[in-house]
């Protein structure tokens, strides 16, 4: 089984899932933000997790339970009817040089991994994001964490046995396009929805 370190666990992330979360972080530059990853284990290969979509959650008071509980139930209800479940968690820290995975993230990720043991945690890498326009980096601007054999969240080394790749290789190029057109202004998260239910956390028209 590939659920512990040293296995050949692979995460393949759809471009839109990735871009939505990075744009969300850029929309709220002065706060921490988080989101969930939706997907499934590949029916053909149980050590491949396909991350198909994402939902940006909050940009305020990430440590409070009520909005989190409501959002997770709603998201599960919506996506399970479409064959997808919550397979991971995304977090961007408030400060540029904060590269730590905090306790709030770990708690939420623990909860998610209770239902999906191969859950992935993605932490936005601000330095990589900053360097994106200058270099030709085609890898996701995130750090990947998974649970090790001792049930702790461990940073996955770039040359480790676990990999995070894009489904569409040009994801960063598209991301840069959206950044320069300030597309982040259109991203709606769950906080926005709870404040105004006409705002749709599914972001159906974001990439049209």
């Amino acid at each position, binding site marked *: 089984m590939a659920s512990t370190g040293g296995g050949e666990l692979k995460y393949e992330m759809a471009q839109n899932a990735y871009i939505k979360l990075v744009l969300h972080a850029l929309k709220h530059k002065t706060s921490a933000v988080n989101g969930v990853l939706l997907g499934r284990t590949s029916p053909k290969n149980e050590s491949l997790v396909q991350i198909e979509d994402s939902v940006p959650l909050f940009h305020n008071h990430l*440590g409070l339970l009520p909005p989190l509980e409501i959002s997770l139930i709603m998201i599960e209800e919506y996506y399970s009817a479409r064959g997808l479940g919550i397979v991971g968690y995304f977090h961007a820290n408030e400060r540029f040089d904060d590269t730590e995975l905090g306790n709030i993230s770990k708690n939420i990720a623990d909860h998610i991994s209770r239902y999906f043991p191969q859950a992935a945690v993605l932490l936005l890498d601000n330095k990589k994001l900053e360097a994106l326009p200058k270099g030709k980096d085609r890898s996701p601007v995130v750090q990947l964490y998974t649970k090790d054999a001792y049930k702790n969240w461990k940073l996955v080394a770039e040359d480790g046995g676990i990999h995070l790749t894009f489904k569409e290789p040009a994801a960063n190029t598209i991301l840069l396009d959206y950044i320069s057109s300030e597309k982040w202004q259109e991203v709606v998260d769950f906080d926005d929805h709870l404040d105004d239910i006409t705002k749709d956390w599914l972001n159906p028209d974001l990439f049209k």
Partner: protein
Amino acid sequence: MVTKTEESQLNKLENQVDNGGGGAWEYLCLARKLKVRRSDKVLKYGLSILNDSRKRSSQGSDEWTLYEQVAVAAMDCHALDVAKDCINALQKKFPESKRVGRLEAMLLEAKGSWEDAEAAYSSLLEENPFDQVIHKRRVAVAKAQGNISVAIEWLNKYLEIFMADHDAWRELAEIYVSLQMYKQAAFCYEELILSQPTVPLHHLAYADVLYTLGGLENLQTAKKYYSSTIDLSGGKNNRALFGICLCSSAISQLARGRNREDKDSSPDLPSLASAALEKEYKLQASDKLSVLTSTLKCLRVSS
């Protein structure tokens, strides 16, 4: 804190200026009055006025307030050269000013020269120990460096003197929540509710923290504060309506097998809240109605 009306007024002006309809000066005045953080727009519109010598001089003495406003916005957007230019202009006009000295210290902070900024703020505070802005900038310097415990300590000291500063209480509460120090966050919201008892957002935040703390007593109190939020906001607060449903569900789970007295004291409340939510969604977000209904069903089943 800004009301919904004030926010939409500001947004309307912002759209107007963005689409070439003018009104930049009105926008800048409103942004200054409401103390909102829209630094990219303030920088853009402010510079358009400052760089045009006719527009600039037509503002009279307000020109200098604009320089200050643009300097701060520039620092927030990391346009440090623009900030320096504005500060230089202010320095020339007001050579001995402490207010300009404050901006110079902020520029050091914006550059990330933490020790120099700290020293500048400390010396400014020696001459004027009651400058609230500088006290808060020192907290910001600590926060920016990741010294959260120092930030908390200084913010607490600040609040001992300036206990009517509601924004500072809210900032402290947010810091505590981010560290999962919920009891301390609850204390801050209690202070806010005491001094501003008719502001529903304080009741809501307090209820959210109590629910997060958990335990039967906290849940029952949270339910009361969700109720007062709904009362104070004329029934229009969806977060509070959800809160009622969550509390009822959690209370029933905890009270299972306990004495009757511990059970839900107001059993009609969750169904009223659910009905209110369903009505709202049917009206304004009908595509999400089925997701809402199954969510509410989940909460009832687990109770």
